[in-house]
C-alpha cells in the first residue's frame, strides 16, 4: 500500500468503526466498546501526523487522490494540502482526547454504543469535509457532520435538550439550503463541481453579479455553521444542553471545520478573495468578538458562559483571517489551533464538575479546589490561556493578531481585540472564584475527583496548552506557515490540481 493511499483512510476508518460499533455494540461488554472506539482515534491521529510528513515529499506540496481512477474534473478527487493537513492534525488530536474522556463520562447516559456511533459519524463528516476537493462532496460531508451533531445535542432526552436540538436543527438545515443554492448557482455558471476546475473557470470568466451573490449566500450558510454574530442564536442553547464531551467537540472543532475552514477554502481558493470579502470578514469577526464577550459576562450557567466565549473566540479567528496579510492569517490559524485546545479543555472541566457535583450553576458550587485538585489545576491553565496570560498559548496568538491589526493599520479592530481580551479575563476570574476558590460548601462534602480516564485527557490537553506557546519556535513555525501560504496565493491551488492531472 503505497503512501498516497493514506488519504482515503481518514474517511474509511471512522466510517468503518461507526458501522462496526453499531452492529457489535449491544452484544459486547462496555470496555470492549470503549476499546473499539479509542483505537480508531489513535490510528487517525497517527495517520494525520504521517500525512504531515508525507506532504513535504509530495509534488507541489499536495496529496492528490483520484477516487475511482477518474481524473479530477470528471470524478471526485481528494486534495490534501498544507492547510488541510493542519486542520486534520487539529481535529484528530482533539477528537482522540475527547474520545478517551467520553469513555468515562458516558456512564451517566443510557445506550452508550449509539453515542460512539454518532461520534464517529461526526468525525467522518469533518474529516471528509477537510479532505475533499469537490464542492458538492463538501456539502454532503457537511450534512453528515450536521445531522450527527443534531442527534448528539439531543442525546440526553430532557426537555431543554430537545428544544435546543430543534432550534439548532432548523437553523442548521436552513443554512445548508443556502449553501446548496450557492452550489447550484456556481454549477449553472461554470458547469463543473470540482473546486479547482471551478476556480479556473471563475478566474477567466467576467461575472459582475454572480460572485457577489454567491459569496453572500456562502457567508450566510457557513457563517451560521461558524456561529458568527448575526447567526449565532443556536450556539448558546445547543452547547450547554449537549453532553460535555460533545459540547467540547462542537465548540472545539465542529464550528471551526464546518465554518471557518470551509469559508477560507471556498473564498481564498475557489471564488478568489477580494478586498470587500476581507472587509466583511473583519467586520463580522469584530462584532462577534464584542457581543460574545459582553453576553458572557452576565451568565451564571458555566457551560452557557463557555458557549458565549466560543462565539467571541471565533470572532478572533475570523478577524485574524480577515486582515488578509500573511501575519494576520498566521495569527488567525494559530488562534484556531489554540482555541480548539483550551476551549475543549474548559468544556471537559465543566463536564467533570457536572459528573461529580451534578450541577452547572456557578452559584451552587464553590471551593472545589480541595476535593477536585486536578480539575481545578487544568481549569486554571485553560482559563489563563483563553484570557491571554503570557506564558500560555492564547497570549501569543492574540498578540500576533493585534500586531497584524496594527501593521495593517486597522487601529479600531486592534482596540476591540484588546478590550475583548480584558473582558474575557474578567469573566474567567469569575469562574475561578465561584467554582474553585472560596470555602467548600457543605453540599459538596462528598464530592470525589473525576475518574482516571477523564483526568488523563484533561491533563494531556493542559500540557498541549502550555506547550502551544512554543509553536512560534523557528523549527515548528513552518507547520502553520505552509497553511498560510496555501491561503495567500489562492490561485496556485487550482494550478497544482489541474497541472498534476495534465501530466
Amino acid at each position, binding site marked *: 500500500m503505497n503512501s498516497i493511499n493514506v488519504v482515503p483512510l481518514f474517511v474509511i476508518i471512522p466510517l468503518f468503526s461507526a458501522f462496526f460499533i453499531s452492529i457489535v455494540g449491544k452484544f459486547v461488554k462496555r470496555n470492549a466498546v470503549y476499546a473499539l472506539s479509542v483505537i480508531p482515534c489513535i490510528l487517525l491521529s497517527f495517520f494525520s501526523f504521517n500525512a504531515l510528513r508525507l506532504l513535504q515529499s509530495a509534488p507541489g506540496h499536495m496529496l492528490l487522490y483520484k477516487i475511482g481512477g477518474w481524473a479530477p474534473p470528471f470524478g471526485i478527487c481528494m486534495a490534501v494540502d498544507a492547510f488541510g493537513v493542519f486542520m486534520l492534525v487539529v481535529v484528530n488530536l482533539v477528537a482522540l482526547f475527547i474520545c478517551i474522556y467520553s469513555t468515562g463520562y458516558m456512564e451517566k447516559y443510557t445506550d452508550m454504543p449509539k453515542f460512539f456511533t454518532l461520534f464517529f459519524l461526526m468525525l467522518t463528516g469533518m474529516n471528509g469535509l477537510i479532505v475533499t476537493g469537490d464542492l458538492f462532496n463538501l456539502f454532503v460531508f457537511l450534512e453528515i457532520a450536521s445531522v450527527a451533531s443534531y442527534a448528539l445535542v*439531543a442525546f440526553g432526552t430532557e426537555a*431543554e435538550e430537545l428544544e435546543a*436540538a*430543534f432550534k439548532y436543527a432548523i437553523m442548521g438545515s436552513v443554512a445548508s*439550503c443556502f449553501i446548496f*443554492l450557492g452550489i*447550484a448557482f456556481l454549477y449553472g455558471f461554470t458547469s463543473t463541481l470540482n473546486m479547482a476546475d471551478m476556480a479556473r473557470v471563475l478566474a477567466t470568466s467576467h461575472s459582475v453579479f454572480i460572485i457577489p451573490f454567491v459569496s453572500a449566500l456562502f457567508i450566510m450558510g457557513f457563517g451560521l455553521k461558524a456561529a458568527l454574530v448575526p447567526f449565532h442564536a443556536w450556539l448558546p*442553547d445547543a452547547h450547554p*444542553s449537549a453532553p460535555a464531551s460533545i459540547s467540547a467537540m462542537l465548540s472545539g472543532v465542529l464550528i471551526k471545520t464546518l465554518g471557518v475552514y470551509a469559508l477560507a477554502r471556498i473564498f481564498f481558493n475557489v471564488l478568489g478573495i477580494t478586498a470587500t470579502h476581507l472587509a466583511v470578514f473583519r467586520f463580522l469577526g469584530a462584532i462577534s468578538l464584542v457581543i460574545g464577550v459582553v453576553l458572557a459576562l452576565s451568565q451564571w*450557567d458555566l457551560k452557557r458562559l463557555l458557549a458565549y466565549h466560543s462565539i467571541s473566540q471565533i470572532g478572533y479567528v475570523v478577524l485574524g483571517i480577515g486582515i488578509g496579510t500573511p501575519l494576520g492569517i498566521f495569527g488567525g490559524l494559530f488562534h484556531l489551533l489554540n482555541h480548539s485546545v483550551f476551549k475543549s479543555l474548559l468544556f471537559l472541566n465543566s463536564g467533570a464538575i457536572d459528573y461529580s457535583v451534578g450541577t452547572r450553576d456557578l452559584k451552587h458550587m464553590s471551593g472545589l479546589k480541595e476535593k477536585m485538585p486536578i480539575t481545578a489545576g487544568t481549569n486554571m491553565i485553560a482559563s489563563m490561556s483563553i484570557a491571554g496570560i503570557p506564558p500560555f498559548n492564547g497570549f501569543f496568538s492574540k498578540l500576533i493578531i493585534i500586531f497584524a491589526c496594527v501593521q495593517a493599520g486597522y487601529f479600531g479592530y486592534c482596540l476591540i481585540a484588546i478590550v475583548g481580551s480584558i473582558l474575557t479575563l474578567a469573566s474567567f476570574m469569575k469562574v475561578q472564584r465561584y467554582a474553585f476558590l472560596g470555602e467548600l460548601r457543605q453540599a459538596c462534602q462528598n464530592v470525589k475527583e473525576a475518574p482516571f480516564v477523564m483526568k488523563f485527557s484533561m491533563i494531556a490537553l493542559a500540557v498541549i496548552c502550555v506547550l502551544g506557546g512554543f509553536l512560534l519556535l523557528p523549527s515548528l513555525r513552518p507547520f502553520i506557515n505552509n497553511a498560510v501560504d496555501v491561503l495567500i496565493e489562492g490561485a496556485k491551488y487550482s494550478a497544482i490540481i489541474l497541472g498534476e492531472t495534465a501530466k
Partner: protein
Amino acid sequence: MMIYLLCLILFCIGLYGVLRKRNIVKIIVGLGIIEYSMNLFFVLLGYRTHGRSPIEARTENVLNMVDPLPQAVVLTSIVISLAVTALVISIAIRIYEYYGTFDITKIKRLKG
C-alpha cells in the same frame, strides 16, 4: 429566466414559513418547501430544450440528452432532505410529549 425566478419565489415562501410561523409543524412544512424548491432549481439548470432523458436507447444513439449530473446531485439531495425532515419530526414528537404544545413561543424553558 422567468422560471428560475418562480422557483426562487417558492424558496422565499418556504423561508417565510420557517422564519415567521409559531407552530413547529408549520416550520417543518416550510423547511420541506425550501428543500423542494432547492431541488427543482438545480434540475432546472440542467434542462435542455427538446432534450431526451439520459438513458441510452437500444435502437438509435440518443443525441440531445438532458444533463445527467444535476439529476445525480438532486437524487442525493432528496434523500438528505428526507433524513433531516425525519429527524426534525421525531424531535418535534418528543417535544410535544414534554411540553404538550407545538407553539414555540410557549416552549421557552431555556434561559436567554
